[in-house]
């Protein structure tokens, strides 16, 4: 056959077009895929929910995380692909308490009648969000907080970062286990067993925190945004947030001064920043007060590298504990 340049070029084009299109289609497809067959299909919103569902469900469930790694969950909105995934799913696990203000709208527009929606924080006693500028009254507020019930879950009214206390994590995993058992009775024993293991780990984590932080009770930590209310309540610490409960605002000059003064007054040696919030402000305060900076993870936006390398709730919380202890030492 005589070589024809024209035919050669057109066949190359045809092949590359086909391959390219196929590649595009594959990469766009985010559904559950073939290996999810016969498993309970779970869509979880943020990393802690994803991780908890994975821990309880084991290999009986296929879990997909809705909010991509490294994205600030307060800002995220679902795409059409995400909606398709929800149409396929059996269980939708969201943290609630205002973490995913879009959850209700999204659920309202999903046609999937069999989809069970679980607000994992439903059995947690929620903390009301304190006014950022009321640091002086932290004491009085805290006592009130303990009696707060969670009748309404409006965005911004409660601190949504419940999982940062191991006890709450345990409650969220219990709720997930309940939901899984209701959906998939046949594997109930496996879910119960996984829950028992996870509970044990939560208790170990809780006592590790309690023991290690005991000497520093009443101590102050300066954090990027006030996500650590539950952790502080549990272990007798007080947080000073550069920002309020929601991240990503520019601080004002008075707030900066207030924090710098507190850092000097309490002899705080470390300013915590978090991955998804720019460390510039934390660094400025640290420079001014002559202290160091350190990462403290609120876990909601764990990076993809971290997840791929097998980091989970417990390992990140252990690192947080180390960072906290190092800050007080």
């Amino acid at each position, binding site marked *: 056959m005589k070589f024809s340049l024209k035919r050669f070029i057109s066949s190359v084009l045809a092949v590359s077009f086909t391959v390219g299109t196929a590649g595009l289609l594959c990469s766009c497809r985010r559904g559950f895929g073939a290996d999810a067959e016969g498993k309970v299909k779970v869509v979880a919103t943020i990393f802690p929910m994803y991780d908890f569902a994975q821990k309880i469900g084991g290999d009986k469930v296929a879990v997909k995380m809705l909010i991509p790694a490294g*994205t600030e969950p307060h800002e995220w909105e679902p795409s059409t692909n995400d909606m398709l995934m929800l149409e396929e799913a059996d269980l939708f696990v969201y943290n609630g308490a205002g973490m995913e203000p879009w959850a209700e709208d999204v659920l309202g527009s999903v046609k999937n009648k069999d989809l069970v929606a679980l607000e994992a924080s439903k059995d947690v006693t929620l903390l009301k969000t304190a006014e950022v500028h009321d640091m002086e009254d932290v004491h009085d507020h805290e006592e009130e907080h303990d009696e707060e019930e969670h009748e309404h879950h409006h965005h911004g009214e409660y601190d949504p970062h419940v999982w940062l206390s191991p006890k709450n994590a345990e409650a969220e995993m219990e709720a997930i286990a309940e939901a899984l058992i209701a959906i998939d009775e046949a594997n109930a024993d496996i879910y119960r067993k996984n829950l028992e293991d996870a509970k044990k780990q939560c208790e170990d984590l809780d006592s590790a925190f309690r023991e290690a932080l005991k000497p520093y009770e009443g101590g102050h930590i300066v954090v990027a945004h006030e996500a650590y209310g539950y952790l502080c309540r549990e272990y007798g610490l007080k947080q000073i947030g550069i920002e309020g409960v929601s991240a990503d605002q520019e*601080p004002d000059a*008075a707030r900066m001064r207030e924090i710098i003064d507190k850092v000097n007054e309490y002899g705080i040696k470390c300013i915590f920043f978090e991955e998804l*919030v*720019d*460390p510039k402000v934390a660094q400025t305060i640290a420079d001014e007060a002559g202290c160091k900076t350190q990462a403290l993870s609120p876990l909601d936006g764990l990076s993809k590298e971290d997840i791929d390398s097998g980091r989970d709730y417990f390992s990140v919380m252990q690192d947080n504990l180390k960072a906290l202890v190092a800050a007080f030492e």
Partner: protein
Amino acid sequence: MPLILQYEYMQRALFVGLLLSVIVACLGTVMVHKRLSLIGDALSHSSLAGVALGLLLGFNPIVGAMAICIVSALSIEAIRKKLGNHSELAVAIVMSTGIGLAGVLSGFVKSSADFNSFLFGSIVAISSFEARLVMILSVIVLLAFVLLYKELFYISFDEQAAAISGVPVGFVNAVFTILTAVTVSIAARTVGALIISSLLVVPVAAAMGIAKSYKTTVLWAIFVSTVSTIGGLVLSFYFGLKPGGTIVLLSVVFFLLFRVIGYLREKHSVKKGA
């Protein structure tokens, strides 16, 4: 020493804010006379595309932002010449391109954490590296402005006449286009895009309300932008207001005030004349 000066971050905010407000008023005067008052918005949006490009291709995102800003500014300059009466379209077209490009490119950036940290600028959180960068930039911009003042004056008065009488119009325009691009890309990350795009325009617009010459326009613009910056920082420090917004609003107050003064003065002189 007053309380406000006892903190290093405030010293830095006042110092860097002062430097930037002077050079931005100078550059702003040039840009407003060229009918490119929205160039700050266009460039700060385009710089996002540069940040994304830098993160994707693995070079320093700040360099990426600067490069894209320069390319955008030069494109504005080139398109502007072709459009004649509709020169403001050039800004809109480049801004759309920049936003579009940033949108597409940011889809490929894996972690929004990286992306965010290159977009965020706050006048109360300036690093010492950024402060040094602004110092160097200010010297260059002020030198260029003083050395090329006569040429600038000519060009803003009548670009064609200036060219005929031997002013190197292309060169002067290119210098200020590049300087504006570099200033916006650095300042957007240092003090925030809001402050920089507003201070390029509002103080000049205020100054034009009362100034009678090019020179007094420049001087009044510098006055408005420095007083707004310092005033905004003081208000933010003592009353807990957000610094960026406060600075911008103060400059708008000056704009209104100067317009009223200009109006009253005109009325007065008309009466006198009659």
